[in-house]
């Protein structure tokens, strides 16, 4: 990994909300072509960390560097030229056409009183084609399903032409097929466009999925306000870590798909009754 590929550096990052610590001592680096999975129980501070990485919230301590520049010194426009965002759920108000939504990804490259030009429209159309939604170009996006909407959000992020895309649980509320469609698209973006992905997820198997596809994947297991463990999926997503972090029993399996190819998955089995440390039966 050369320094040229280093897109984002997080050093000693800490964040408080109303004097309550949300996270501290977060350190990691992100390089082009990597998928960084942020994994941990509800309320562990994943979303807050993502908002800091997007420049929406300011760290209490430490720093986030985007290609060497401190994010707190960058304007929203500068940040948006480096980091794009795919929200967990997008709230729809007006029935904009699909293409108009994707075109909004060009805002960071449009002047304050300006409107997008034909080049921007071309980029938006290409982005839509990459996620395979070009046939819905002129459909009101309020008519799309949750999975289709998520693809449009991905296309919008793609139209931003940023080296990094941040996704907050992008497959929450999606059915089996659309979950896979999103994952397949992410793989395509990383492999073909060299994008780096930061993804908060509740599904440890997503990290295995990327690893199985031959993408350099990192998992940060977030618990007790910091990274409890950090590394490659096969070393982090383990039965013991599931027990420690989620208090569940799980089974790690290796299932052969074809000769020389197998899929690694972790299966939740049962919850462990809490340790009787409260002293009350």
């Amino acid at each position, binding site marked *: 990994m050369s320094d040229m590929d280093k897109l984002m550096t997080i050093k000693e990052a800490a964040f408080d909300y109303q004097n309550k610590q949300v996270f501290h001592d977060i350190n990691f680096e992100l390089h082009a072509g990597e998928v960084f999975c942020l994994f941990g129980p509800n309320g562990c501070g994943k979303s807050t960390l993502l908002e800091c990485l997007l420049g929406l919230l300011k760290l209490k301590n430490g720093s986030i560097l985007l290609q060497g520049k401190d994010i707190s010194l960058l304007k*929203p*426009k500068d940040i948006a030229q480096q980091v794009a965002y795919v929200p967990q759920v997008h709230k729809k*108000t007006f029935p904009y*056409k699909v293409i108009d939504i994707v075109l*909004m990804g060009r805002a*960071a490259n449009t002047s304050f*009183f300006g*409107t997008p030009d034909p080049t921007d429209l071309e980029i938006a159309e290409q982005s839509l084609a990459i996620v395979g939604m070009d046939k819905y170009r002129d459909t009101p996006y309020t008519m799309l399903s949750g999975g289709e909407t998520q693809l449009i959000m991905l296309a919008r992020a793609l139209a931003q032409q940023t080296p990094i895309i941040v996704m907050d649980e992008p497959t929450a509320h999606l059915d089996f097929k659309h979950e896979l469609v999103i994952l397949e698209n992410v793989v395509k973006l990383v492999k073909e466009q060299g994008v780096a992905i930061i993804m908060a997820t509740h599904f440890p198997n997503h990290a295995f999925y990327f690893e199985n596809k031959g993408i350099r994947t990192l998992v940060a297991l977030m618990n007790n306000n910091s990274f409890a463990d950090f590394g490659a999926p096969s070393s982090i997503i383990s039965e013991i870590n599931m027990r420690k972090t989620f208090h569940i029993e799980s089974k790690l399996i290796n299932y052969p798909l074809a000769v020389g190819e197998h899929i690694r998955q972790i299966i939740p089995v049962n919850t462990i009754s809490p340790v009787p440390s409260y002293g009350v039966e």
Partner: protein
Amino acid sequence: MKRTALFIALVLAPCILIFVSLFIGRYPIDFSTVLKVFLSYFTSIEVADIDKTVVMDIRLPRVLLGAFVGASLAISGAAFQGLFRNPLVNSGLLGVSSGAGFGAALAIILFNNTLLVYVFAFGFGVLAVVASYLIARTYNTAPTIMLVLGGVIVSSIFSSLISLAKYMADPYDQLPTIVFWLMGSLATARYQDLLYAGAPMLIGIIGLVLMRWHLNILSMGDKEARTLGANTNLMKTLVIGFATLATAGAVCVSGIIGWVGLVIPHIARMIVGNDNRILIPVTISLGASYLVLIDNMARMLTGSEIPLGILTAIVGGPFFVYILKRTKGASW
């Protein structure tokens, strides 16, 4: 092709309506007389002074002012609907109308001077919006929901103050003036009104037209808009500023004219869709045409003038129902 035809229609509609309005009214002036009045400025054609006065000094400023007021209310309504991500809001959301109403009532009681009524209406309209904005401002930003609440609070305070002003006003002289002002009218329009109120309305309209695409971005909500690269604080402040200039400019000369800022944007949405790049210019044309049309009715329908604020809803309501039924609320 269809686009071009629509564009031409939208440019021509207000122009034709403005022209037609010049020979509508109690004093009979026919088409050729109107033409002669215009030509008399460039050629040696003679026209009666009375005709010239009625066309140029009474009807033309009134019709032009009506077009400006309609355009201002409609464009601000559309901008606020985008900014607040709510198709049910109108240009008065942040209290500009009730603020202006109170300012006018106060000036009527204190001074009974037309110019001061404008100044007070405009000033208090702007003041109301600033107050809503300050109430909403927390942690260096003004979240949308806080702005809405700020607007609700400020509007109700100024509504109460309007009632107080009515209660204290002289019931034979000032009270009717206040009540008529609040119902909205263009009957007293002169060129000077166009001069005073035209400037803020024009600045507001131009500003919103320039920011029209970024209204799309703002309608994605603060969080997404920022990740798309928008400086949401500055943009929101500017949109609110331009919309307030336009609305306060309109209200201070016309009184309170409801409905235009809510319904014209909706009719425009049904015709051209929700992309603010097209929607915003279209609301100018429709708003101007609608108010010129309604003002003609106000002048013509009965022996004495009907206040505009009454007619906008009575005529517009059924028309909106018709549009809703025809499009079956499509795309909502």
